């Protein structure tokens, strides 16, 4: 009758445990020894059959004999195998003595594979395990949106610039930067009672010095410079120069001095082209007004 079963289920009619793929047929039956759908490995089509199954880390040998075929509840006999690998193999041999070679062999193979993967599980649990934390979509979306809004509210560039300017004001940078007007304002505030000529003289001196210093300092920076937008820097400084000129009429007093300076700086000028442009700008309107 096992032959009849196989003829029906295995080849011709529908078997619910059978999975067909292009090259292979698999059997989903939990008592199947090899996992393939064959005449010799189908648990339904063989009246004498045995498997190894593991439960909670322990391996059991399941056996089915023809005598118990009418009693489905008692059909599968279960034997707990020894934890020791060799002893378990002997137990399998002992229980499946006089059974067909195929089943014995396949049982031992399956048992080997199972023990191997159990060992691996035990090893892996000792190592660090990655904890997978599921993301919640709504929360992720909310967070990204809030981050964008926070970024806009932060106005980072402005904040950084403000902070840097404040640090400059508090003189944390010491003597590296010399900005004349800043120092000049301070001086004025301190010495408001003094006469105008004196302040003018001071201004002139400071301006002169700072002209020198400014050249010096900016030369350094241009050596270090990694600014691709040098032209921006140029134009801004040019604008500054023009503005300063327009505002302070007294500057004209020492223009002849600056004019006199430039020929001295001839060779030096050519090394730093943008500085050249500065001075030219100053001079040209002067000549126009003349």
């Amino acid at each position: 009758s096992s032959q009849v079963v196989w003829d029906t289920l295995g080849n011709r009619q529908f078997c619910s445990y059978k999975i067909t793929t292009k090259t292979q047929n698999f059997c989903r039956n939990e008592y199947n020894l090899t996992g393939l759908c064959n005449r010799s490995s189908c648990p339904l089509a063989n009246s004498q059959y045995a498997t190894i199954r593991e439960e909670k880390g322990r391996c059991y040998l399941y056996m089915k004999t023809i005598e118990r075929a009418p009693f489905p509840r008692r059909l599968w006999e279960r034997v707990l195998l020894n934890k020791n690998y060799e002893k378990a193999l002997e137990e399998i041999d002992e229980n499946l003595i006089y059974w067909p070679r195929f089943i014995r062999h396949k049982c031992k193979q399956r048992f080997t594979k199972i023990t191997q993967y159990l060992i691996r599980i035990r090893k892996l649990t000792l190592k660090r395990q990655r904890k997978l934390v599921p993301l919640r979509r709504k929360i992720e979306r909310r967070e990204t949106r809030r981050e964008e809004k926070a970024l806009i509210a932060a106005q980072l560039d402005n904040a950084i610039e403000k902070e840097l300017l404040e640090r400059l004001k508090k003189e944390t940078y010491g003597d590296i930067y010399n900005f004349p007007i800043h120092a000049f304002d301070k001086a004025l505030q301190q010495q408001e009672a003094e006469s105008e000529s004196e302040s003018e003289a001071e201004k002139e001196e400071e301006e002169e010095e700072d002209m020198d210093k400014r050249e010096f300092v900016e030369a350094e920076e241009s050596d270090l410079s990694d600014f691709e937008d040098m032209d921006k820097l140029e134009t801004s400084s040019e604008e500054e120069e023009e503005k300063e000129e327009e505002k302070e009429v007294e500057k004209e007093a020492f223009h002849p001095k600056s004019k006199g300076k430039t020929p001295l700086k001839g060779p030096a000028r050519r090394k730093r082209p943008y500085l050249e442009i500065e001075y030219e700008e100053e001079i040209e309107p002067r000549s126009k007004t003349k």
Partner: protein
Amino acid sequence: AGHGSGPVGSGTEDGGPPAPERVLFPPTFSVSEIKNKQRRHFMFLRWKQQQRKEKLAAKKKRKKEREALGDKAPPKAIPKTIENQRVYDETTVDPNDEEVAFDEATDEFAPYFNRQTVPKILITTSDRPRGRTVRFCEQLSTIIPNSHVYYRRGLALKRIIPQCIARDFTDLIVINEDRKIPNGLVLSHLPDGPTAHFRMSSVRLRKEIKRKGKEPTEHVPEVILNNFTTRLGHSVGRMFASLFPHDPQFIGRQVATFHNQRDYIFFRFHRYIFKSEKKVGIQELGPRFTLKLRSLQKGTFDSKFGEYEWIHKRREMDTSRRKFHL
């Protein structure tokens, strides 16, 4: 037939697409009652235009009144922002608070702030980092002076930490990766200092930043910490500050900024130049990323037995839109 003035209600209007100057809708009329979508949309646009006109007119009127009053005009109303409306946090640090000052003088960062230790940083990743994370680590290590990148080859953090302490590292940064992008940062101050776990987002490597400058140089950058107001914010801010050596080299003109806004910490790395004493130009180099604090732990990294100072609990802490913790 659908577009013309059908039997379904519309106001007193001349019956054609060109909108008249002033449309009067009967008071009980609502645009959403029109069944025809096209018509409804059209009427809605018309209504919107009208609203806008009214608003503009009201604004002009207010402006005229203000000018007419001159000096006696009431002061301009300050618009409400989330920062204005922020729920007052009782742990906000007062600059003159002595207790806080005392705490800060005796906490784990005191040796750093007293200049007894020089920061030395170890940067590593989670297992099997992908290219993006690796490059990010490299860029980080160029920014942070005195930092080293080591690959994590399946080593447990708990075993790395004693080794680091033995080799005089002061800080450990672990960048966690998920699906080929870095998404987490664990910052641990080593000789049993606090451990902060952040969520990292919008990471941009150097090549993805537009208009960036040349590579960051080896100069020690300055550090800017903005908006860390509460006690928690203070401790986090000090953690960040302790990553960088104490004395910045101003010649380098580089600045690293940690800006806290609504509990998001934005990190930027710039090079600045002072064009005048009222104008400064900044140019972004270096990677950028945003962090959000998830937990702050008292000792070094220990997820099971550690003593947590602060954990972000979503259900309790995310209830109000105006409440922030940093």
